[in-house]
């Protein structure tokens, strides 16, 4: 493609806020036909927000986009598609119960006879074969999508985009679940699309791939565009430096680490589960805050779910509070004094339609029904609920009446912590405890974490924000690709080194 061709797509001054927090500031970029634009940045740097705006998933607050000089302001993914923009999502949007051909034409099949509803199966098959050939996918058109591998499904998505005559294709982390061979094949296809004049936006943490594929690279940090250059003027080192930046404006409560940590409260030896995590070894001591860093999909939440007995594991052993727990289950883990704050508090942590008091009491009800009839001792329970709610400072007038769904994100998170506090746990697993809550509430969550540790509990703190971890933890483990890749004691905290370890998989691929 002619590198001097004029851009046909431009975006300027894109801004987006969620609940008063601006997550994207003045984003701007343009695309030429056949250009591959790489978009890199840490988790939460605004990459997905940008692409969701371009793909019509989110509306923009401010800014302007044009296609061929004409105003472009999509209100739905359908509209974006009609204007020639296809989004190949990380979570593929295919119908697994339908065939490949049906997936390609589900929005409108060619008809056998005009005016009648019957599908022209022969035409569907022929057209599908053509599109599949264009992406080098050798499967029969009537193969059910459920039989295809992750990589093959991705090719089907691309074929679908080709069928819709897309001019811009957006790839969001397309290689995370692909084998090396599938990745190579994907890159061949992307090269082919490029030669056909299709512009590509490529989002990835695998910086080596970005260097290999892209003509131009845009780096985002905290919603700001911090670097934009042609491949020739960019290196992996430079990308990492730009991504990390040097803005530390976040506030953390002072943390005085205890002089001597207690004995181990959680020990994990050689924990493995195929396809999820491999050979995990870690030891968490009483009074310690142990951070787990890593990129999206590094296996952190999966590890947490296994440790709390929600998912199975194949080999390895787990000891909680010094006793080996053979059969992990949420009930067994709770009995041994483990508490788990899930990443998705709406779905797993809270009953939205119930009061704060009911939510806080939920996990400890058996402790308050110890008389012969097992009736719940309302008064004692009520006192305890009031006590922990004070301890975590839930701002609500009436604990018994206020429904959890009416609380802010921060207060909801405090209600979950309160729920577990009632149980006096010795091990706390916190999975993204500050996601989606405002700065003030974050500070209060940090204070609670410090209190927990000071009270002798061990805290496993999972977070995507490296700053939060360096601010809060005594030690940080870095996960990548389901394995623990590095360990940093507090004295050696270095954001760049942590990020580099998290990107181990990506850097390795490029080597």
């Amino acid at each position, binding site marked *: 493609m002619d590198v001097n061709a004029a851009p046909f797509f431009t975006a300027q001054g894109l801004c987006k806020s969620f609940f008063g927090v601006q997550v994207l500031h003045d984003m701007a970029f343009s695309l030429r036909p056949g250009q591959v634009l790489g978009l890199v940045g840490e988790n939460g740097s605004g990459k997905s927000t940008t692409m969701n705006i371009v793909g019509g998933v989110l509306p923009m607050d401010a800014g302007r986009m044009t296609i061929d000089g004409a105003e472009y302001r999509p209100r739905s993914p359908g509209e974006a598609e009609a204007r020639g923009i296809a989004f190949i999502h990380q979570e593929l949007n295919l119908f*697994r119960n339908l065939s490949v051909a049906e997936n390609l034409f*589900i929005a*409108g099949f060619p008809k056998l006879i005009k005016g009648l*509803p019957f*599908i022209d*199966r022969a035409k569907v098959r022929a057209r599908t074969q053509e599109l599949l050939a264009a992406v080098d996918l050798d499967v029969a058109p009537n193969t059910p999508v459920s039989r295809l*591998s992750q990589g093959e499904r991705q090719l089907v998505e691309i074929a679908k985009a080709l069928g819709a005559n897309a001019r811009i294709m957006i790839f969001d982390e397309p290689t995370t679940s692909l*084998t090396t061979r599938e990745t190579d094949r994907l890159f061949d296809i992307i090269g082919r699309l490029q030669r056909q004049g299709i512009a590509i936006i490529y989002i990835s943490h695998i910086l080596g791939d970005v260097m290999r594929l892209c003509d131009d690279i845009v780096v985002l940090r905290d919603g700001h565009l911090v670097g934009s250059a042609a491949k020739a003027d960019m290196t992996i080192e430079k990308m990492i430096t730009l991504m990390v930046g040097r803005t530390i404006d976040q506030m953390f409560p002072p943390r005085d680490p205890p002089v001597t940590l207690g004995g181990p409260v959680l020990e994990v030896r050689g924990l493995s589960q195929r396809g*999820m995590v491999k050979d995990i070894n870690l030891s968490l001591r009483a009074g310690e805050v142990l951070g787990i860093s890593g990129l999206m999909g*590094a296996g952190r939440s999966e590890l947490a779910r296994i440790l709390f007995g929600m998912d199975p594991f194949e080999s390895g052993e787990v000891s909680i509070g010094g006793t080996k727990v053979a059969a992990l289950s949420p009930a067994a883990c709770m009995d041994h004094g483990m508490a788990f704050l899930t990443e998705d508090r709406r779905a797993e942590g809270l009953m939205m339609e119930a009061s704060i008091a009911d939510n806080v009491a939920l996990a400890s009800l058996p402790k308050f029904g110890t008389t012969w009839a097992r009736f719940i001792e309302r008064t004692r329970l009520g006192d305890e609920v009031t006590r922990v709610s004070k301890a975590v400072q839930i701002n609500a007038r009436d604990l018994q009446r206020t429904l959890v769904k009416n609380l802010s994100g921060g207060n909801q998170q405090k209600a979950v912590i309160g729920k577990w506090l009632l149980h006096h746990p010795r091990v706390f697993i916190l999975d993204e405890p500050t996601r989606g809550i405002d700065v003030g509430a974050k500070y209060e969550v940090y204070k609670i974490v410090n209190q927990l540790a000071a009270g002798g509990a061990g805290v496993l703190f999972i977070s995507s924000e490296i700053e939060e971890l360096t601010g809060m933890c005594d030690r940080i483990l870095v996960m990548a690709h389901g394995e623990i890749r590095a360990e940093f004691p507090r004295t050696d905290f270095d954001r760049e080194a942590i990020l580099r370890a998290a990107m181990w998989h990506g850097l390795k691929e490029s080597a």
Partner: protein
Amino acid sequence: MSARDPGSRGRHTTLFLLRNAPVLLFIVLLAAFGMMSGRFLTVTNFVNIFIQAAHIGIIAIGMTFVLLIGGIDLSIGANMYIVAAVLGLYLKDLPLVVSFPLVTLIGLAFGAVNAWFITRLRVAAFITTLSTLFVGRGIALYFSGNKMVGFSPEVLSLGRASYLGVPSAIWAFAIVFIVAFVTLSQTTFGRQIYAVGADADAAGKAGINVRRIVFSVYCIAGVCAAIGGLVSLSQVAVASSTFGFQKEFPVIAATVLGGTSLFGGRGGVLGTVFGAVLIQTVENGLVMTDADPYLYPLVISVIIFIAVFVDSTRTSILERLERRQIRVERA
């Protein structure tokens, strides 16, 4: 192909068994009843089974559309009774070619009311159709004065008629089946029903008018309930106040037994026909073997339990097989 977890082969075998559980059950039942009664394995008896299964089968075909999008319609029994009451009370003197289409339209309207509440007011399908189940029967009982409703003699003679040697009930069953089968497998609308059932959000993103599809399937269920009601009342000639009462149980059981998932997206009307015939075979077999009539509900409920159990086991296994993996384990 990417690596699958090691238990997958065992799970695939289990899946195969689960998928074919109703067929295995059917074969076992045929053999058992056949041994117990000499009259069971005869052509006449099987024609009878089909005639008796026709009305359940037709309504279950409509139910299949609803379950395919992951919905439910509990109100079909009330729909049947309204159709019977209107036909017997007000349209008795009209020729059947006029009155039958008219009451079928009433069934359609009943389905459209369900659909309107579900798609426009976003009331859960379970609640909506549970309410219309009571409201519908209540209205019809008010007009019928809780008394038997009789029909014109032509209705009964239609019920007893045969064309080309095939009884009318089986004709109706076959025609509804063919139309439904072609619609589901050969039209855009049909394939989009499967897409909506698999993932309504993704279907919306793919440009499918989800609301229109959902609306349509409840209308189809209403029409099928009306047709099934007509087939049933033409066999019995009168409709008591319990006509259609609790029909939702055998209908949903037949659909699920035929392999249509309660969770949406999987199944089809061919299986539904099979399911309806299977349930009728059991009832017929129990009669033929002079089983204690108090045993019938027990046996039927065991079969319904098997159907629902098989469906949820299969769904959870499929979910486990489909779980996204983080690591790609190289062989």
